[in-house]
């Protein structure tokens, strides 16, 4: 039983991906022991009709998710009336989390709009998933270069909203050891493991961040699902840590919202 907090549905804008159709994606997740997957939509990166993106995502998870897909709506606080998108995610679609992509949506973490988003998400006790990047910046389409999110304002944001659960996603060295530990201590900050690299990555990661703040994430289907699964073979963590990272931490996080 594994809870994957970093899955994407629909189409990556720049090429077709293996498993970018929901049915095969769900089948593969199940075959590899994923019993719950928190799924956002690639459409949320570039579409302005975010309400439509989230409605389709909710329907797709409900009709083709085979009981394991939990939709995570996109909220873009630079769009007019984004607060209504957040309300619909929570009230109409029953989502427990939202995903934000400040770099694709053109704002910084210390912008007023971002502050307002955290305020509202906190009031609704929703989890915020912050994707620092989607792909290696060195391989971006030349007409679509999107820098990695600048994380310097995160300390202040987390200090101001320590009770808003925040999941840092796609962190390939953007937030390193000490800074990650500081964030975890300052608030309800979690890190998913899809981009944890170096040989024996998880053994190193648990030395930097309390294992209670690590979550299984795959960035599937952009990444091969096996990349995160195999990390538990390369690193020796012990049963308690493995169970916490793969399942218990995410379950506890969700339970704390209710």
């Amino acid at each position, binding site marked *: 039983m594994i809870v994957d907090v970093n899955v994407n549905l629909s189409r990556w804008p720049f090429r077709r991906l293996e498993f970018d159709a929901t049915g095969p994606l769900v089948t593969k997740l199940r075959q590899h022991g994923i019993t719950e997957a928190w799924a956002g939509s690639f459409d949320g990166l570039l579409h302005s009709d975010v309400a439509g993106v989230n409605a389709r995502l909710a329907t797709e998870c409900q009709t083709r998710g085979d009981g394991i897909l939990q939709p995570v709506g996109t909220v873009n606080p630079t769009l007019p009336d984004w607060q209504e998108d957040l309300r619909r995610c929570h009230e109409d679609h029953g989502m427990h989390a939202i995903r934000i992509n400040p770099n694709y949506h053109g704002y910084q973490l210390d912008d007023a709009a971002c502050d307002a988003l955290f305020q509202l998400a906190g009031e609704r006790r929703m989890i915020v998933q912050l994707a620092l990047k989607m792909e290696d910046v060195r391989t971006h389409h030349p007409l679509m270069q999107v820098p990695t999110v600048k994380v310097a304002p995160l300390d202040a944001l987390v200090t101001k909203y320590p009770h808003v659960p925040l999941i840092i996603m796609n962190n390939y060295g953007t937030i390193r050891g000490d800074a990650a530990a500081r964030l975890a201590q300052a608030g309800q900050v979690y890190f998913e493991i899809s981009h944890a690299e170096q040989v024996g990555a998880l053994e190193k990661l648990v030395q930097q961040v309390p294992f209670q703040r690590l979550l299984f994430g795959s960035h599937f289907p952009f*990444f091969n699902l096996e*990349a995160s699964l195999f990390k538990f073979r390369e690193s020796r963590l012990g049963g308690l840590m493995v169970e916490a990272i793969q399942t218990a931490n995410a379950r506890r996080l969700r339970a704390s919202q209710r």
Partner: protein
Amino acid sequence: MHRRLFLQATAALGLSGAASNGSAGESPAGDAGQDAAQPATPVAGDLIWDLHCHFSGVPGPTIEDRTRQILEYADRMGVQRLVFFMGWPWSQNPTPDDFRRQNDQVLEALAKWPERLLGFAYLSGHHPRESLQEIERCIASGPMVGIKLWVARKCSDEALDPIIARCGELNAAIYQHTWLKTQGNGEGESTPMDLALLADRHPTVPIICGHTGGDWTRGIRAVRAHKNVSIGIGGSEPTSGFVEMAVRELGAERVIYGSDVGGRSFSSQLAKVYGAEVPEAAKRQILGENLKRMLSPILQTKGIPS
């Protein structure tokens, strides 16, 4: 899904009911969460040779310390043979003294683990004469079986031709780093297109296009017509579709697994192969058979068991 792949993946997670590995890191509450997936011992069976390993990513004051740790991780992942190149610390534009120092470190590791490790000599296109001397020292008269060229000088430069020709005579493998960075490559950093020019001048010499340019969708195309070029798939994000496109456009026989540990992990790089939707026979070729075939002549010459 292929049955063997499924078994590999589930075994990797301990979902097949394999016994605990009893590692020192096992929690005292080791039975906590009976449903939790547990790390398992490596799955035997696949021949896995890793084209691309460094002494980085692990602590330790000596090469022996570092290599021992890398090998422990390799054991867990079922990687049998590892090709090392460059030493620690490394440099992008090494002087002859510096690349000799780094090659000495690789030679030290080879002497300690001759049955597991293979070595490529680190050279520089900026120093072709000294590089040729290093080929004689490390390969013709030493145990190394290939060369590594990094970012000192673009490989399209004809100054590299004597190096490539000599490697051809020795059946030594040639690993050339390539990238295609959206923001632009470094001054001496080769693209797969540069490598294609080199391959054109040496059509009978096998050459490996390292990283496949990072942007593999363009890198694969750049070398597609050059049948003497294989691609190294290591050292980039584990993006899905890489191996599928490579097998489709090049054929599985031109695709070689490598990791780029310790900056990368065995996990993420092996996942490119195990997670690919290609025939199992193709996976076996990529994981080890292709590199073994490429190196067999020089291994045989040197009397190194393969």
